[in-house]
């Protein structure tokens, strides 16, 4: 049996992520904006999995940390510089502090009460961003760049257009290579590669945590907290550390969302965003290393590509059939695509939860084992 050791896994992961603009081309998802979303939500889900997958504590409040990260980054863009480095650093720090406070209070309870507390905090943050915190969040309009922002590190600025986010002069939006390969028009931009490198780094950190004594303690929290306490371990600081680490990952993801599109509204803190990351982790495989990232790709792909399939496209699929068959099939299929993408996603989610409790990763493993077994039969082993 092939055994994936960690080095090999990391190597394959890195190669796939770096080659994504090429690999994703046939799926229609290879445009920079969507690929950045894959990477950013991948970071969000990988971080969330450190809390949810390892300790089993289900938080519905991580949207708050995503939003806080975005706001922190925006304030750096407005006050300090359009360089993304200070923005990202501040997003991680602020989200970390914010999650320390929320985690400290919420972790006094476990199970459903913990989930409800985090949900309440996220909703509170969301509503406050709309109301009393308007001076910080600019309320319903959302926080945006303005020509007269100080940006004290950037010096004299052009006054005719808004500046772009950059990494020491490399503009995030800029496409630096635009080759035609296999008939596809490929776009390589700086923004995606910044996100990709941070994604690989996040994956590496998660991998190290999973294999560390700290990770072992987190898994022990999930399995039997009573035994852990009677073994001389104080479980609360461990869960709090996991909560803060996952909050910092969420803050980083929020900051990256702001580097991609420098404007942020309160809806980024809404609990549905926090619910989505739960779906990503469960769909991909909670407690697995690669699962959360797969789940993030899966959901973002559905949201952005599957939802664009309209009736015209569906008719295109069945064009070779007689008219009546074409119409019939199109009528059956179209509720599931385009605007109906939630329906398909919901059904897939149910199928995964019922038949593959370990998520897509579990499915992959079973398939792999099945193929191996079939192989062995063929050669008579």
């Amino acid at each position, binding site marked *: 049996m092939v055994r994936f050791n960690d080095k090999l896994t990391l190597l394959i992961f890195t190669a796939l992520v770096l080659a994504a603009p090429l690999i994703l081309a046939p799926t229609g998802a290879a445009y920079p904006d969507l690929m950045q979303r894959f990477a950013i939500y991948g970071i969000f889900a990988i971080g969330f999995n450190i809390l949810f997958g390892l300790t089993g504590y289900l938080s519905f409040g991580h949207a708050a940390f995503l939003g806080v990260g975005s706001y922190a980054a925006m304030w750096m863009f407005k006050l300090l510089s359009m360089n993304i480095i200070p923005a990202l650093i501040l997003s991680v720090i602020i989200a970390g502090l914010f999650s320390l406070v929320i985690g400290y209070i919420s972790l006094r309870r476990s199970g459903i009460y913990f989930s409800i507390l985090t949900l309440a905090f996220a909703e509170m943050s969301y509503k406050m961003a709309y109301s009393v915190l308007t001076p910080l969040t600019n309320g319903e309009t959302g926080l945006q760049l303005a020509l007269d922002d100080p940006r004290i590190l950037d010096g004299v600025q052009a006054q005719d257009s808004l500046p772009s986010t950059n990494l020491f002069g490399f503009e995030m939006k800029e496409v630096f290579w635009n080759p035609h390969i296999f008939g596809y028009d490929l776009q390589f931009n700086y923004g995606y590669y910044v996100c990709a490198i941070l994604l690989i780094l996040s994956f590496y950190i998660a991998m190290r945590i999973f294999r560390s*004594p700290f990770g*072992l303690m987190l898994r022990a929290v999930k399995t*039997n907290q009573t035994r*852990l306490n*009677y*073994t*001389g371990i104080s479980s609360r600081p461990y869960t709090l550390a996991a909560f803060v680490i996952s909050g910092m990952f969420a803050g980083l993801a929020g900051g990256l969302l702001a580097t991609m599109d420098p404007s942020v509204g309160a809806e980024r803190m809404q609990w549905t965003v926090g619910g989505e990351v739960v779906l990503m982790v469960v769909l991909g495989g909670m407690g697995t290393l690669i699962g959360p990232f797969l789940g993030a790709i899966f959901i973002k792909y559905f949201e952005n590509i599957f939802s664009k399939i309209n009736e015209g496209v569906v008719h295109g699929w069945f064009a070779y059939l007689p008219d009546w068959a074409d119409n019939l099939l199109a009528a059956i299929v179209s509720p599931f695509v385009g605007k109906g993408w939630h329906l398909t996603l919901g059904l897939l989610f149910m199928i995964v939860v019922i038949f593959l409790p370990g998520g897509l990763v579990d499915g992959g493993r079973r398939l792999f084992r099945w193929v191996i077994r079939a192989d062995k039969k063929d050669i008579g082993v």
Partner: protein
Amino acid sequence: MGILEVQNVNKHFGGLHALNNVNLNVEQGSVHALIGPNGAGKSTFLNCLIGKLKPDTGSVLFDGQPVLGKKPHEINQLGVSRVFQTPEIFTDLTVLENVMIPCYAHRDGPFRVNAFGRVRKDKGVRDQAEHMLEDLGMKEKMHAHSGSLSRGDKRRLEMAMCLVQEPKLLLLDEPTAGMARADTNNTIDLLKHIGETRNITKVIIEHDMHVVFSLATTISVLAQGAIIAEGLPDDIKGHPKVREAYLGEAEV
């Protein structure tokens, strides 16, 4: 001076006087059994010792230090390990990982973020855990998923997890409850083996007289929340109060 000194412990649950002025003195190196009929307050007493319940009045000194009001993990760090009635283990983890956790607790204390260490390459802790498993005859099962072990093996694993911490005091809450005779005898042999290889003071709460009289060096009898007799096993066997309260129900 005993290693564990319990003085005048009282505990009420509403109108029920669950523990009534309980005094207990456990000598270093002894195997002290606490017996008594159902509802006598044995489990309540144990829970007071390990920080799960807080008695209304009284004091508990372990190794000269007061333990009342301390949290379970703090009491464990002082050197008290506990075996539960139903084995409490980490069923999602492997047998080896189960034993490595108490090793880390012993080495690193109640909390330490060691996020970049590698469990697999932690030679010291791993060897310690493997030795422990070897001693209790479980080495060949160390990579097994602990949730799939038999009940007897789960009990054995739980003992390994407690012993690897090198506790000064081991509390056993009905270690053979619900076991078949063969498993019970195995557990007695295991405890005898532990007694021969390590000098650990033990407090055993037990229903099964066969177990008690095979292991105990001192016996205290608890009935209706109070200690009614204490002494050597032979004295207890013939004690009239004990017969009345408890042994009258069972042949010894």
